[in-house]
């Protein structure tokens, strides 16, 4: 994860530099009457310094016996890196992005049904027809609860005229 950490901190450093550059053009005011640019200027500097600190920490050799940088109480990752199925993450991300892209033109019913069928398969259920049946039931329940009961104006897309 060392390279990943350096790349990530480098990206944040770049964001910090852009952020700070934009803050320089905002009215700063004075210490007795700080303007809208005052706080961002301080935050931007903080962002740059901390990102540099993270990069240096990864690059500089660690003293022996020192706690590894990655130990964290709130970390909940239980599986060893080798056991993980990273492919599923990419598939799910692509699926969600696809859903967001087709939601308006195709409408909620078609998009979410397709989303569910694919998601059920990604999570390990391989048979198409039962997956489609499960998705149809979930879509029906969510249509009744969200659209008819909670009155959420979900886009209906190409089904707009059919449903009315």
């Amino acid at each position: 994860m060392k390279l990943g950490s350096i790349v990530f901190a480098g990206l944040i450093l770049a964001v910090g530099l852009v952020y700070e550059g934009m803050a320089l053009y905002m009215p700063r005011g004075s210490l007795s009457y700080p303007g809208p640019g005052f706080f961002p200027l301080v935050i931007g500097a903080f962002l740059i310094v901390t990102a540099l600190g993270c990069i240096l920490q990864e690059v500089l050799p660690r003293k022996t016996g020192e706690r590894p940088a990655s130990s964290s109480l709130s970390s909940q990752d239980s599986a060893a890196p080798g056991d993980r199925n990273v492919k599923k993450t990419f598939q799910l991300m692509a699926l969600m992005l696809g859903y967001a892209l087709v939601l308006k033109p195709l409408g909620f019913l078609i998009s979410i049904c397709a989303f569910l069928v694919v998601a059920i398969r990604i999570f390990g259920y391989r048979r198409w027809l039962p997956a489609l049946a499960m998705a149809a039931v979930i879509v029906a329940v969510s249509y009744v609860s969200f659209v008819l009961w909670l009155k959420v104006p979900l886009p209906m897309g190409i089904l707009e005229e059919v449903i009315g």
Partner: protein
Amino acid sequence: MDLFSGLIHGFSVALTPINLLFGFAGAVIGTIIGILPGLGPLGTMALLLSLTYGLDPTAGMILFAGIYFGAMYGGSTTSILLNIPGEAASVVTVIEGYQMARRGRAGAALAVAAVGSFVAGTISLIGLSFLAPTLAMAALRFGPPEYLAVALVGLVIMSRLTGGDLPKSLLMIALGLALGTVGMETVAGYMRYTFKQPLLAQGIDFLPVAMGLFGISEVLVTAEEPLRNMQLKKVRFRELWPTLVEWKRSFWPIIRGSFIGFFVGLVPGPSPVIASMVSYSTESKLDKSGEFGKGAIEGVAGPEAANNSAVGGAYVPLMALGIPFTPAMAVVMAVLLINGINPGPLLMTEKPDLFWGVIASMYIGNFMLLVFNLPLVGVFASIIRTPLYLLMPIVLLLCLVGVYSVNNSLLDIWLMIGFGLLGYLLRRLKYDLAPLVLALVLGPMMERSFREAMMISRGDLSVFLSRPISGTILLVGAIVLAVPPLIGWIKTLLRRTA
């Protein structure tokens, strides 16, 4: 309104059918997600946040209190029966709980965990009932320097206590503060970092950020985990009664765990997790039986009491000061914010129904949870057999529909997916998400307090140190930040000279 009349008023609010229903729903959902490994209380609350929009904020707060407490109860079930912690605060329960189950004492472990949780929950609620109003009264004297000091020190303590790496935690704080500056600045109406996008003028909405960082990223991490073979141990109702010796051995760990949990809960950080670990370590040091690691009941009773008690403690700063010290409390605070309520010391006097109603509902919820986790433990434990391929797509559906429903905005879906990816990457790179989300919530308040303090003091920075309360708070922060590296430096120096 004094404490007792406040509580009586609170019970009259909490016992209305609608609030009872939300308390019940929260307790059931909390128990279920506590039992299910993967999705934790924070992720669930973040995912359900959109559903509280337009809901009576008291009902929303009651629902979330039920979920948070319920998850602490439910977490022990899978730890004991399956050797898998249902959520992070039950990790240490696995050590002794599963060993007890292997020796045929699963029922006793479950009963002690449930009763310990109930006792601790009640003790922490008594603490919350007394401390929150007192602190709120004291906080009425707080000015902008004090608020800035509390928020700043809260972030500093959190960065040290999460156990993560300090530079990484500070980077997360900086990123959260930076995100908090996006949008129209409140004093002069100046647009910052909006890139001429009108939708960003209101700032980055907390809802898609929380749902993405905690909800979506949790689903993504769960999806990657290898499938486990869930072999539940069966527990008969008559086995649920510990022996007299087991009760005696559990008594003091429960009491100690309750107090440890409550006080750890007051401190910024993932308090239920830290509380359970502190309690486990305390009990293992006090152990005389030599059973630790082989199924000592003290190692179940103490941590399970502590993680429940920490929840009550964590509510104190939110209810009294309007400042969340944990990400879960930031999400709870969002229930108020999205319904137009600004939490703070005036909450108790301006919204007594909400303040006392929520506290009273916690007493009722705690009792409901005792019932769910003793006679109904078998029913809830069987939920773990729900296949992931059905559960996770439904969770994702709730996210995608929920986040859209608040503003009917596609931008919120994009933001949620983006922050979901960011949350996933941060988890994989071992960054703590908690400082980021707390800084995002506290950032605008910190900026406002700083600017007001500077205007009041005419640009005199010493105002933060010269006022006794803010000076003391900042001193505590400086000690927390400086002492650990100082001790390390002294130790190295001593080692070299020896």
